[in-house]
């Protein structure tokens, strides 16, 4: 048992080794060494990513007692791929003014004032938290892992920009995050009370017994509800989404890109783990109250996200709201359950992570007098001076919209297929309508840069002094076009192997759904 746990945390150990080294490197007075910090971080992230297939071999996974043992490998690899993109985006952006001052001899290096190492340390810690979430097998581990995912991001937001806005949004993010943590911790406590165990597999058995005895206890349902609502904060799912727009806007672009993926993925994984304890037991679907909760969350999340995005003039706020709506789509896959549903969630996280990072990379690649561009009007006619960024923005937006044949389309298709296959046609219809609404603002991100004439505002935009955000954006945009060719391979990787009793359960659920009208 202990050995198993240690074996499965090898990737995290790799990352933690990286944390130590990067923390030291960031404080070295040599400019050359400090400028290598992002690349060293990347080596460790890649190392962690490579270790996943070695650690989570089919044999090791089949022997594991974890609730969803197949989750670790695809999620870990997806996280590492996206993390590399997120890191590429930051090259030359962290501590830029301070490093410039040192390079020009205006300032001396003072380890106390340098944030460079810290940023990457926190980044890796957050990533490690996400990976630990995947291998959680009890509530306490799950709680700690989720908090490890979130806590570093609070600091990252605070230090991402010198301005007070960043600090203001960090404060909001921290306090609201604490509130949500309290909420889901309370939920965990109730779940423990209802089942008498903190271990997820044991909890599943206990709940299965309860279900067989005439129904899951009210205490467990309420506990689960609180847990889901609290973790909904990580996903930015309604009604816990309110912080997102402010925080995303306040943080620097490269941090916003991180916020758009890592906590969200952690939340989605926690959802899948928790729901697997209660749902899909012995052929039953989710308990009705939980299903209703998820439905309401999904519908509210996508609708509120999309409608609010329609009204934004600020590109970052627009993307923030759009990422809220994507959480709503993700919930469809979670509702659909193990098998098609969870596989679709993993695929969508990958697809969405790439496209979202790409869109933020475009924003990071542009600047006006050292400040980030804000308004959507800044993007008008971008193609004339920055054709690469304009095309990258158009392609990534198209992918976020789910425009065939771009990668995003396949992600959404998988989610919708899973939703329909599990009988939630109405939900999929609502999602489809939302997709249509989202076209309105995504197409603006396609049309304005490519087709409009440049305005006076957009004339003054320059490219960022670091080429890496631009390369990242163009590379990610290219991947939106190229990766669909290798879709079958990606799907093989994101496919969650079902344990045998789960497979039975899914088969039974399908049968059970045949005659329900697809609520």
């Amino acid at each position: 048992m202990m050995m198993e746990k240690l074996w499965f945390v090898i990737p995290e150990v790799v990352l933690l080794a990286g944390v130590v080294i990067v923390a030291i490197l960031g404080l070295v007075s040599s400019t050359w060494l400090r400028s290598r910090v992002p690349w060293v971080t990347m080596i460790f992230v890649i190392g962690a990513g490579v270790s996943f297939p070695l650690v989570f071999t089919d044999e090791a996974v089949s022997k594991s007692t974890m609730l969803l043992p197949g989750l670790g490998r695809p999620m870990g690899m997806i996280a590492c791929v996206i993390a590399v993109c997120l890191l590429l985006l930051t090259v030359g952006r962290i501590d830029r003014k301070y490093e410039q001052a040192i390079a020009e001899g205006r300032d001396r290096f003072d380890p106390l004032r340098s944030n460079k190492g810290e940023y990457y340390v926190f980044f890796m810690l957050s990533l490690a938290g996400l990976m630990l979430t995947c291998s959680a097998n009890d509530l306490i581990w799950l709680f700690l892992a989720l908090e490890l995912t979130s806590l570093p991001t609070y600091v990252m937001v605070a230090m991402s920009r010198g301005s007070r806005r960043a600090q203001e949004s960090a404060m909001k993010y921290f306090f609201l995050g604490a509130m949500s943590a309290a909420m889901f911790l309370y939920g965990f406590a109730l779940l423990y009370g209802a089942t008498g165990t903190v271990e997820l597999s044991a909890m599943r058995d206990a709940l299965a017994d309860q279900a067989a005895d005439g129904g899951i206890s009210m205490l467990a349902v309420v506990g689960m509800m609180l847990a889901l609502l609290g973790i909904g904060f990580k996903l930015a799912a309604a009604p816990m989404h309110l912080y997102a727009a402010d925080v995303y806007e306040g943080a620097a672009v490269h941090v916003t890109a991180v916020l758009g993926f890592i906590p969200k993925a952690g939340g989605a994984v926690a959802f899948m783990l928790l729901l697997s304890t209660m749902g899909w037991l012995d052929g039953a679907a989710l308990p009705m109250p939980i299903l209703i909760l998820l439905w309401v969350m999904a519908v509210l999340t996508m609708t509120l996200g999309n409608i609010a995005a329609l009204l934004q003039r600020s590109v970052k706020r627009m993307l923030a709201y759009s990422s809220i709506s994507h959480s709503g789509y993700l919930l469809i896959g979670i509702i659909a359950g193990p098998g098609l549903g969870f596989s679709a969630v993993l695929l969508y996280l990958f697809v969405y992570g790439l496209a979202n990072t790409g869109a933020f990379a475009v924003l990071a690649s542009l600047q006006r007098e050292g400040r980030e561009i804000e308004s959507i009007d800044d993007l008008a006619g971008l193609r004339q001076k920055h054709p690469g960024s304009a095309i990258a923005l158009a392609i990534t937006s198209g992918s976020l919209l789910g425009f065939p044949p771009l990668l995003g389309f396949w992600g959404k298709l998988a989610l919708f297929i899973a939703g329909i296959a599990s009988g939630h046609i109405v939900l999929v219809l609502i999602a489809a309508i939302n997709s249509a609404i989202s076209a309105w603002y995504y197409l603006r991100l396609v049309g304005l840069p490519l087709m409009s004439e440049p305005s006076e505002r957009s004339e003054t935009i320059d490219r960022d002094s670091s080429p890496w955000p631009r390369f990242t954006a163009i590379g990610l945009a290219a991947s939106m076009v190229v990766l669909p060719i290798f879709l079958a391979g990606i799907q093989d990787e994101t496919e969650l192997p079902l344990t045998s009793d789960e497979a039975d359960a899914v088969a039974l659920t399908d049968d059970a759904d045949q005659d329900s009208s697809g609520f």
Partner: protein
Amino acid sequence: MTGTTIAIRIAESIPAVPAVPMADVVEATSHWWAGFILWCPLISLVLCGLCAAFRVKSKLPAWITVLSLACSFTFTVILGNLEDVPERINLFEWIAVFWSDGSFVANFALYIDSLTILWMSFVTGLGTLIALYASEYMEPDLGKGYARFFAGVSVFLFAMGCLVMGDNLLMLYLGWEGVGFASYWLIGYYYRRPEAVAAAKKAFIVNRIGDLGLALAIYLIWATFGTIQYNELMTLLDEGTYATVYEHWSVEAIPYLLMLAAFGKSAQLPLYIWLPDAMEGPTPVSALIHAATMVTAGIYLIARMYPFFLLEPTSLHVVAWVGGLTALLAATIGMAQYDIKRIFAYSTVSQLGFMFLGLGVLTTYGASYHVFTHAFFKAVLFLTAGAVMHGFAGQLDLRKLSGLRRMKGWRIVAWTMFVGCICLAGFPFTSGYFSKDAILAEAFVTQGPGFEILGWIAIFTAFLTAYYTFRVWCRVCAGPVHFEPGDELHDDDHHDDGHDEGHGFHPHAPRFAINFVLVVIAAGALLASVPYFMTNEVSDIKGGWIADMVNDSTAASGIPGHAEHPGTIAHDHSGDHGHHHGSILGMDPHVAMYYISGVVGGVGLFLAFWLHLWRRQDADRLRSWLLARAWIRWLPVAMENKWYVDEVYHALVRAPLWLLGHIFHGFDRYIIDGLLVDGTARLPRLVAKWFQPLQNGMLQSYAITMAGGAALIALLMILMMQFFEGGGVQ
């Protein structure tokens, strides 16, 4: 209302994946290198792109393209020699979407049978030669559009490869759209010329209509049969157990939709109008894409999906009639044009019509053979026209050029054009003679509505073809030396002081690359009659190598004499022996056609020599005589104005669409944008106004809202639990 409804599976009896794959299709994993037939042009595309990015000023892009296409050709030839049964070569998994009771699988795989090899051999072979020709032809653009041109050619070859070699309909569709895109790219190559841009758009938009048909057909095929892979489809059609499906409307609709696609891409009535305009592109493009290869994609499509057409025989009658009428119409227009390239363009439309006629009268062999020979002789005709255009500063008016064969350096052009002309005219014992006869004879053999009339129309068209073909040659290549340059003078022509005919213009004769390619392709055009005399295994008809090639493919049931050929089957029932039953002038049509078409070709040729070489004034006299007679006046006028088809389309299609567009624009602007969007934008804004207090940036109110939201949802859950009576909860 569950997952089962995703697939509109019309016949429940059809399994999503057939248990037994087509018996004689093998998985040829050891032939993985065949993928390089596709990858070579793709690599060349990337390298040409790099050349463009680094502003290479040399001929490097041309050599890259020629080399990579030559590699493709070599691989094709090797594959053709190794291949003896249809085989699948899986390159990689592409799309595989599964759900509880269905799937959509499209692998990036190659389906290689002899039809594929036949098509790919002339596509890659001519592609290589024409790229070589273009290396010289495109010289004036060195350093400007040179790399862009060759990148376009590479895209085209890659897409054409996908179209022809793909193992499923989605790859065919990818290639279909890909060649359309390449065609748009290359027609609009001179993008500073408004005519070129307009022509590119026209080609793209008209093709869109056909592509819609293809997309719908693929969808219907998938919905009906649950697969889009050729071998699985053919297995399903082979097995008689799916008889219930045959009754279904979609089986009747599929051939018509495929036909629409074929008519768009292969420029048939009513969608042929884009092809003549496509001549705005550089001439090598006209030769490669708009004469030899891309436009035959429609014939390939129908030949490949022939079993679907046999399920619905009426569809083949439509194909035959459309083909025959297009052949006649285009030939009459071609007779009255003065622009050499346009004449050849209409001639291409007309010849494509012959091929469709062949498909319609149940001879896939004749159609394929004509595709094969036509690829060579039409390519050589376009390339000679290109050489003339290149040398005479864009001059293409046949009234302003004469006596080319007597000019120094132009003899090769004149005589290769002659070779192309006799093949196109169907002069006895040339390749065009044999391939055209295979179609014409079958029009008299096969029973069908008015097929005999169609046969006589085709013979008349063959006569017109011989006439307009030699009209060009007699005007341009024969006769006294005389020329006027066009208006595309290159810089190096300007500072040549005039001492020759007062023009100040030297036609620059083609150099090695152009002459070499012309000779090779002209030789190919002549030698294309050789396959006809090769012994073939299909015993019943004379067809040689091509008949064998078609016989080993999915188009086999369209070969006269094949066991599954409808004519043959019909005869087995009636007890006749052999499959010949029609006759012309009391003879077997196949024999009679040798004489008829020889005579008809000869008469047309004689007429052309008379009117356009020996007594050119007679041609003008004939024209003014016709124009002076009120009762016949309309004929030459209508022919010269292309039967006013463009004008009719403008009035019937473009103008209404334009009007509709403006109405929609107004509607969009004032109703949608003005009323609804601004209105609805006000609505969310109003909603946002309600929520604005919630989104006010205040931490406390966020916390309260979140907690309140959670509480509201909890309340809702409790209410709903009452409603659903517990829902599995104690």
